[in-house]
């Protein structure tokens, strides 16, 4: 991949200076730094977490892509791999972790459950996809995705980072202050998404009384 190199391809740098001098743009420097050292949060939810561990082990070795430094604390992590079924009970903890991560931050939904509920979608304690709450950058299909699929997904994330521009990325947007903050959902009689309070109140008021569902 040409983006792994820092220098822009249209500048001709003498061979003996290639490791010393680079001519590039600020965007490219920024993206190159980000993509070459993505630190994931050590965060496993369910079955997919086991394949995530397998991907770090000797056979697949995520370290080849600069992703081996799993951080147990969100304050040091660049990306959150939502690896498994998101339940209503767990959701506030996930949102809290996400809000604690410093920007720039990326979200990868690993597996069918995190992407859209998967086989457990009909369950009463299951959130049908983490994208109802977090801005997901890459979805990885599979139940669970194989380590190869996971690594392919993470390379996709790198490709996405390559397209970032300092002017446009959401975390440097001055108008939208706290644009990335996700309000904490509340565990009530069911999961309360506080952004939808009015909608929930209206729907509950018009709900048919005889309906037990």
């Amino acid at each position, binding site marked *: 991949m040409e983006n792994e190199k820092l220098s822009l391809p249209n500048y001709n740098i003498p061979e003996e200076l290639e490791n010393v001098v680079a001519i590039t743009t600020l965007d490219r420097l920024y993206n190159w730094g980000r993509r070459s050292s993505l630190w994931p949060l050590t965060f496993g939810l369910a079955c997919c977490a086991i394949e995530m561990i397998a991907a770090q082990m000797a056979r697949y070795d995520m370290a080849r892509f600069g992703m081996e430094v799993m951080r147990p604390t969100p304050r040091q992590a660049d990306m959150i791999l939502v690896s498994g079924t998101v339940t209503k009970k767990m959701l506030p903890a996930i949102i809290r972790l996400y809000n604690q991560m410093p920007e720039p931050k990326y979200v990868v939904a690993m597996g069918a459950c995190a992407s859209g509920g998967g086989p457990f979608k009909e369950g009463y304690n299951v959130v049908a996809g983490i994208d109802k709450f977090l801005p997901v950058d890459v979805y990885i299909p599979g139940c669970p995705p194989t380590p190869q699929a996971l690594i392919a997904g993470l390379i996709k994330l790198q490709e996405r980072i390559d397209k970032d521009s300092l002017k446009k990325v959401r975390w440097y947007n001055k108008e939208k202050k706290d644009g990335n903050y996700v309000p904490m959902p509340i565990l009530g009689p*069911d999961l309360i998404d506080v952004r939808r309070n009015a909608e929930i109140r209206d729907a509950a008021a018009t709900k048919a009384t005889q309906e037990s569902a």
Partner: protein
Amino acid sequence: MATPILTQTVDLAARFPGMVTADARPGYTGFIVNKENLLEVATAVRDEFGFDLLSSLTGVDYIAENKMEVVYHAFKTTGGSGLIFKVQVERIDPIEIPSLTHIWHGLEFQEREVWDLYGIKFTDHPDMRRILMWEGFEGHPLRKDWKEAFYEEEVKPYKSRWPEGKHTFAEDKNPFHDNLNFPKDFDPEKYVVDKEEDLYASLERHTMKDEAGKMKTDSVVVNLGPHHPSTHGVLRVAVTLNGETVMGLKPVMGYLHRNHEKIGERSTFTQIIPYTDRLDYFNSMSNNFGYVTTVEKMMNIQVAERAEYIRVIMAELSRVQNHLVFIGMLLNDLGTMFTPALYAFEERELIVDIFEAVSGSRMMCNYYRFGGVVRDVSDEILQKIKDLVFDRLPAKTDEMERLLNENEVLVGRLKGTHVLSAEDAINFSVTGPVLRASGVPYDLRRADPYSIYDRFDFDVAVRHNGDMMDNYLIRFDEIRQSLRILEQALKQIPQGPINSQKPNYQIKVPAGEAYGRIESPKGELGFYIISTGKGNPYRYHVRAPSFVNLTAIEKICIGTKIQDFVALLAMLDIVMGELDR
């Protein structure tokens, strides 16, 4: 050979006339105990008849008869068949049943689960709170008249999907356009959030005042998890500490409660098999094994001979890789960051390759079917398994032992750190390697043989000190015994069909109940199924070894140091998919 059906060896009705009646419903066994006499009968079951291990407790909602039932399965640690007794109560709230936690401590979490999912209160229970759902959740989900937000029909296959297959979005039908269900006229802004005061009140605290009464000291409350690298998934443990010593401890679970049982009761019998894969996601083969043997017991069918061998081979390979991963992860928790896990996963990958070759998936195998297995194992794959079992795995197990067992730090950390005594382990319904490391040779492959385990020559691994070192070493013993079984099975495997039944997607199971159990790598994995003769189970309950073993964590950890707690938790070898279901 068919699995022996649980036979009644004890006649409770004759011993307690007027208090106990035999369960005469067709297809049912066991005894129905009067609610008032439950404590007396249960004490006699343990002390007089010797059923010291109360394996499973669960509720059933007989809504048509307007009754709620609680079913107990008691067994003897010396082996043999079990004793089933039940209590029936009117289905009018509040439903109350005396708690048996004082007789069998292992019931603590299971009774809480029945309260959470069925709304049956157990009087005299030490800590009657919800366990899988949060406090404040509306309703008791496993009741037959409770419907989830994405409810479509009572049972699958849904008419909208089959045979025409006109799909709709579940979100469109729900008034909240999501997987949500609020009571009428609910106002989210006025809702008062539960501050979990009950949880913290249930913890043992340690408050002291100095002589003058001026300076007050209190214990520190620490919440480990649900996001914590050492809790093996999304378990949360609230502990109170005096310095570094654990004073009180309560696990909080349900963060991976995926409604396995509710979905299971909506699904057909065949549709449940892939869901069982996701219980203990390390050992999908063992989970399949437990489920299909239970249903086969109800259908009373023979399993194809070759399939029996394939089943045993896959289940034992699964046990080997589970224990290898356990060793790697335990050492991770002890602070050897990663290196032993790298060794363990190297071997696991080879076993997982075999699973992928036979079933098509590395982890979620969905491989067993009623009457056999789904695909045959080719000679090529058999040769691969033989290479692994005869050459590679014994050498690699020796290598791991050589690298680790004499390590001074490891021995210092593990040796003498007490886990459980035999009496406590039995009383807390602990099963699997943890029970055997306490000196109780209770292995279902011997104690209550299922499938063809009675044909193989192997020893039940047992160790007697009950400390962490024994709990760790017994995993190596079990790997060796599994390899012994594998060697014999690989030599004896016959040619022939792999399924005694014709492929059938809508099997009908005769009406009745059954409790099937197998020795999963983590302990006794039980399935309690009630069929009404239709295509779906009326009640489908999983007795998960991780869930029941965790009941003992409070007993194990109080008084130890917080850093040992992490290792002791790893020792129980819990997996969240099975714990929360």
